[in-house]
């Protein structure tokens, strides 16, 4: 019973923390650019404002357009609740498979693109086609980099993989470093941040993610925005789980969970500060250079795979 409660709590925590994380990133970015910033709570205020506004629908909008925000939000939240943030052993941990996770995110993306095309505006279709092109390259690379780790753990289940990392002694494993770099590059691409996509852009021609949301308003827009914030937190937690899981609480006692929570927040803030620094320092890539960026990530994770076989498997 209590484990189900903890599972629920963990999912709720992810959901509530996501806008704060987005606010944290933009605040750090603002400080780095010598601006004051709108504060950590701004995304929450935005969401509240959007929920209280009425929905404006285009005449041509079909049921898909109205349906999509709920699908996107639900799929993303389910994916987020499956990723262990504090406790690896929860009732849902059997379903915490990386392939299932990628499939859930693909479902969300599929409906997002459908919604982008549904309204029939040029920008929505353009955004959808770009999103699909890049995700077709990003998904294999992401799976490949996860496979580098699952080769050691003999499983694609997140909980098993976390237990494997926790139980093996610390070694210098070059393959994991390669997988980590690839994973960071892909996480940036998948969550639509600079240098692949600019989340705050107002220039329609450079948009990818935002282009599909252009026609949304009110609670639909709120759900879409919230889903993309949850996605950032999800990727950050996934990276923490796969590469630096130390500190996760193995059994559900209060002290362990407090420690796990503190360490998780600490790791998250380090990751987000790095992201903010990168976003401040880098310019957005030209659209036609993005496939090359994703190709580099793929080659890196493939090298990780090869190096795992060459160096780390004892013959």
């Amino acid at each position, binding site marked *: 019973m209590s484990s189900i409660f903890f599972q629920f709590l963990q999912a709720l925590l992810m959901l509530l923390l996501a806008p704060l994380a987005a606010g944290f990133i933009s605040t750090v970015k603002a400080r780095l650019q010598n601006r004051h910033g709108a504060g950590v709570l701004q995304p929450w205020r935005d969401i509240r404002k959007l929920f209280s506004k009425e929905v404006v629908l285009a005449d041509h909008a079909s049921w898909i357009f109205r349906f999509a925000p709920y699908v996107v939000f639900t799929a993303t939240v389910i994916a987020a609740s499956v990723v262990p943030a504090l406790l690896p052993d929860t009732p849902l941990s059997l379903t915490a498979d990386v392939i299932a996770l990628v499939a859930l995110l693909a479902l969300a993306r599929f409906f997002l693109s459908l919604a982008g095309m549904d309204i029939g505006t040029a920008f929505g279709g353009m955004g959808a086609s770009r999103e699909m092109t890049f995700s077709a390259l990003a998904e294999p690379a992401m799976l490949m980099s996860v496979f580098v780790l699952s080769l050691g753990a003999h499983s694609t289940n997140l909980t098993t993989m976390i237990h494997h990392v926790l139980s093996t002694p610390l*070694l*210098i494993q*070059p*393959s994991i*470093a*390669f997988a980590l770099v690839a994973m960071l590059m892909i996480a940036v691409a998948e969550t639509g941040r600079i240098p692949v996509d600019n989340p705050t852009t107002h220039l329609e021609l450079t948009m990818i993610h935002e282009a599909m949301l252009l026609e949304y308003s009110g609670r639909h827009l709120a759900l879409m925005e919230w889903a993309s914030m949850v996605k950032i937190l999800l990727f950050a937690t996934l990276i923490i789980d796969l590469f630096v899981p130390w500190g996760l609480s193995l059994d559900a006692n209060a002290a362990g969970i407090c420690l796990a929570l503190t360490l998780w927040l600490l790791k998250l803030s380090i990751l987000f500060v790095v992201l903010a620094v990168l976003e401040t320092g880098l310019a957005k890539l030209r659209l036609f250079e993005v*496939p*090359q960026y994703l*190709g*580099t990530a793929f*080659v890196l994770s*493939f*090298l990780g795979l*090869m*190096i795992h*076989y*060459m*160096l*780390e498997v004892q*013959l």
Partner: protein
Amino acid sequence: MSTFLSQQLIDGLAALTLLISFALLAQHRMLSVLHWFAAQGVLLAVTAALVAYSSGEHELYISAIMTFLLKGLLLPWMLWRVIRSLHVHREVEPLMNNGMTMMIAVVVTLFSFHVIQPIAVTSELMTRNSMAIATACVLLSMLMMITRKKAITQVIGFLAVENSLFFAAIGATNGMPLVVEIGIAFDVLVAALIFGLFFFQIRHTFDSMEVDAMNASLIHKDDEE
């Protein structure tokens, strides 16, 4: 430092060497190719020093220092001077597009791993794991020579082959005898000097550094005669 840790470190350096071979293939700009080439030299020197330390073969220290001075500093600097004084176009011009080259590179890596695996099993050295990587690096450098148009990038590919062979020698035998190594080092130096002179001659004769252009010009001359 325990043997285990040094083996781990050598494995890590081997992984980096493979990464640099891929990076050399992927570069667009002449200057960054040279940077990566210099990095490869420095990495080789570090590897040699580490193997010298962990295996107790003190001769390897000398070759480590030689590698650092020659391949890490001197050769990249000389090539850079040649490129600058010849006003070669600063972009690398590959024959195929980059994605295709990368695909071939990945296949080449797989192939060399497949070929070396049965040999590596029989080796007793602690560097045996890096043999597959050294082979892959040799083949990747050859791929770089094949897929480039400019004579200069082909020469860098050639020097990278030599670097990878040196790495293979460290990995397979804990280094060659010092005399051999000094001989090879000076051969490479002289080769680089001759290449440098050659580039000036080639430019003087053909007005171009592209291999295809040279061939075309020769055929044209034959026809005239």
